Structures are given as C-alpha cells and as structure tokens.
C-alpha cells in the first residue's frame, strides 16, 4: 500500500548572504501510513513547524522530495484532500464561525448546498454550535482553537496536519481535542500532529518521530520504540533520545 506521505532527503535552509544560512531541515526521510496518528516530537527549533510548512508548500525546499497520496504536495487535487490546523489559531476577527467555515468550505471546493449541514455538524463536534453567529474577535484562545480544528475537519479531509493541537488548552480542552482525534482515527483518517505534550502524544499516537536540530533522530511505532530501550513512558524515551544525541 502506498504511504499517505512520503518525504525523501528533505533539506530546507533559511537566510543567505551576511545573515548566514541556517539549515532548518537536514536530509529528512519519513513515511506516514494510511490510518495512523503520527506524532512529530522535538524540542523548540527542532524543525517540526518547518517540516509541516514544507509539506503544505508554504516554504521552498532546497533539496529532496515530498509526495502526498503519491502526487505532488503542491497540486490542487492533493491539497483538497488535506486539512490543516496551524499552531497559532488566528482567524478573521470580523467574521463569525459560520462565515469562516463557509469561506473555508468553499475554498475547499464544497458546494453551498452541502455546506449548510456540514457547518452545523462540524460546529456541533467542536462545541461551538451556540457561538456560530458571534464575531470571532470576542472569542477566547480555546474557542479559536476549536474553530481551527473545525476548519481543518470541515471538508472531511483524508489527511489531517495539526501543528501543536494541545498547546495552551486547559485539561478539558485537551480531553475534548483528544476525543475528536480518536473519532477522526475511527473514521480511518490519517493524522500528522506536532506536539510538545508528550503525555498526550503517548495517549493518542500510533507512530512517533523524534526530531532534534533539523534532523530526524528516530521514528517508528510507539510500542516498538518504547520496547527497544525498555522505557516506561514516551517522556523517558524522549529525554533519553534527546540526551543521547546531545
């Protein structure tokens, strides 16, 4: 079976001239299989967000290749099968959640007729159905995060990319997000998430990838990785990996 995402020898650098070149990703190789929840872990500056931006075509890659569903990551058809939740969830302050989802749904190619029902059920799923006509500028961070998940899920994408979905959430928010992710997995979707929250990643991920200093240190099924070094938790494994390499 073809992997959902296949990355080969990916290298990305920032800056040039007097600023000096900084390598943000250095020869990254990865594969994500259909139906799995893949956790991208690493300290700040490891290259997680750069990797996600590369997958989404938001930054130029220097070397290597990215293939999604066997095709180009930049192709319109490919991107209509993706859902993305950014790390910082900012949406137009002058719109309501309903208008925001309407805009994103139409950008995904959904028809107006199918949108109405889908918007209602998606807002229901993220717990924003009572706030659908309130301007986003009055929203708390948690509410904006929920809207962010809603826009990523709205068009029922096959592959979801979530950048720090647990960041800044209170315990209830985390449980809610975790439950949403479990539901998504239950529907056979593939999820790539980056996270600093190791306990959450351990609860939900099938496969994890540890990154440090622009490189992938190790990736594989969570169970296998923990058994390899007889670690009790992802946290101890993570600290050992980061420490080993330091």
């Amino acid at each position, binding site marked *: 079976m073809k992997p959902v995402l296949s990355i080969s020898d990916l290298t990305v650098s920032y800056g040039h001239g007097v600023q000096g070149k900084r390598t943000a990703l250095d020869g990254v190789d990865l594969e994500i299989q259909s139906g799995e929840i893949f956790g991208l872990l690493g300290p700040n500056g490891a290259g997680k967000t750069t990797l996600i931006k590369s997958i*989404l075509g938001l930054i130029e890659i220097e070397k290597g290749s990215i293939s999604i569903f066997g095709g180009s990551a930049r192709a319109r058809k490919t991107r209509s099968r993706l859902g993305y939740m*950014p790390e*910082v969830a900012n949406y137009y302050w002058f719109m309501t959640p309903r*208008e925001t989802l309407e*805009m994103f749904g139409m*950008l*995904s190619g959904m028809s107006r007729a199918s949108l109405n029902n889908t918007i209602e059920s998606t807002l229901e799923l993220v717990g924003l159905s009572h706030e659908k006509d309130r301007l986003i500028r009055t929203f708390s961070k948690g509410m904006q995060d929920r809207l962010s998940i809603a826009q990523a899920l709205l068009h029922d994408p096959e592959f979801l990319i979530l950048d720090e979905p647990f960041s800044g959430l209170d315990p209830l928010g985390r449980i809610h997000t975790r439950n949403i992710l479990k539901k998504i997995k239950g529907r056979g979707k593939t999820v790539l998430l980056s996270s600093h929250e190791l306990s959450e990643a351990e609860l939900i991920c099938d496969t994890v990838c540890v990154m440090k200093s622009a490189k992938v240190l190790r990736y594989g099924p969570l169970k296998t990785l923990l058994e390899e070094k007889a670690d009790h938790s992802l946290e101890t494994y993570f600290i050992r990996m980061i420490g080993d390499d330091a």
Partner: protein
Amino acid sequence: MRNIAILGKGVLREFLRRKDFYLIFALQIVMILYVATISFGGERGFGRYFKEIGISLAYIFSVIIAVIFASRQIPQEIESKTIYPILAHPVSRTEFILGKFAGVFLIAAMSFTLFYATFIASFLLRGDLSTPPLLFLEGYVLHLFLLSFFTSLTILLSLFLSTAANSGVSLIVYFGTNWFGASIPGSLYLPHPELFDIKEKIIHTWDIVPAWVVLFLGIYAALYTAFFLVSASAVFKRRNL
C-alpha cells in the same frame, strides 16, 4: 475564479465591519454641507468652487481607501498568520493576490460611487444643470481606472514595504503625479496616473473626452494593473511564509 471571488468577498466583509469607511463618508458629507454654506465669488464662481471641492473629496477619499486597504491586506495576513490555513487549501498564491485586488478594488469603487453620487446629487440640488451628464460619467469611469492602477500598485509595494511606508509612498505617487506628472524629467517612461484625472474639464465644463481616448486610457490602466499584479504574483510565489 471562484477562489478569487471568495477572497474578495472577505475583503468586502472586513470593509463593511470596520468603521473607517463610515467615518470617511460622514466627513465627506460634513465637508460638502459646509462648502455649500459658503458664499464665494458670486453664483458662477461658487458653482466652480463647489465642483472642485466636491470632486476632489470624492477622488482623494476613494484613493485613500484603496491605498489604506491595499497596503495592509497581505502584510496583515502574514503577521496575524491568517494566511496559513487559506494557502493550505487548494488556493494558489496568484488567486490570493487577485482575490485581494478584486476585494480592494470593489470597496474603493463602491466608496467612490457613493462619494461621487453624493457630490453630483448635492450639485444638482442646487439647480445647476450646466455640466453635461456624459462629462460626469467620463470623470467617474476614468477615476475607476485610476483606482485599479493604485490598488494594484499598492498591493505590489506591500510585498516590499511596511503598511505605513507603503501608504505614504502610494499617496506621494498619487499626489506627486497629479501635480508634477507631466514635468518630471524623463516622464515619458514613467506611468502617468494623472491622465485619468479630468477634474479641470468638469469644473470648467469643457468638452467631453473623445470615446477613443477613454478607450485608450482603459487599455493603459489595464496594462499597468496587469503588470503590477503579475509582478506581485511572481514575487509572492517565491516568498517563504
């Protein structure tokens, strides 16, 4: 086309929910009413004076709206990170630029229509029917060309300059070319947005502009608009976000 319309609609929605436009429109009404109360150089002199102030207000305020909105569209999207989920959808960067252009041009044109209609209505209410309606119409159409020129220019500059610097530069280009456009050395090779301004003709009720000249100016504006937007798209495509 659909994506351009969706993004343009977003700009329109922002415009209608901000207070900028309502303030500028209120200011224009107050200024027109104030000018209408001033007696200046007899009835004939007053007619010209009133036309000059009224048209200038409609022209300048609509350019200010175009420049202010165009200068902040893309930098604001990048700074607030609202651009990421949009470009993660099947939306090309060219569509993003064109959507922003379409939205800003639409709001500038809407504002100008309202400002210009207010001016003409207040002028006609004074009982002055000496200006041919076709001359007013030409003034309207040519200013739409100018708005297209400045909206696209400001969008291009927004990829290089901060919002404040861009607004300043674009307005300097507007006023500079209006006042000194023909007298700048080597001006043959520079764009001439002042060609779209027939304020003097309307004020003094001179002859209408021949149709072929209006058509030529339409092509001139379209070529510059296309050049600015193609350049903006080429620059934006290569930008890391």
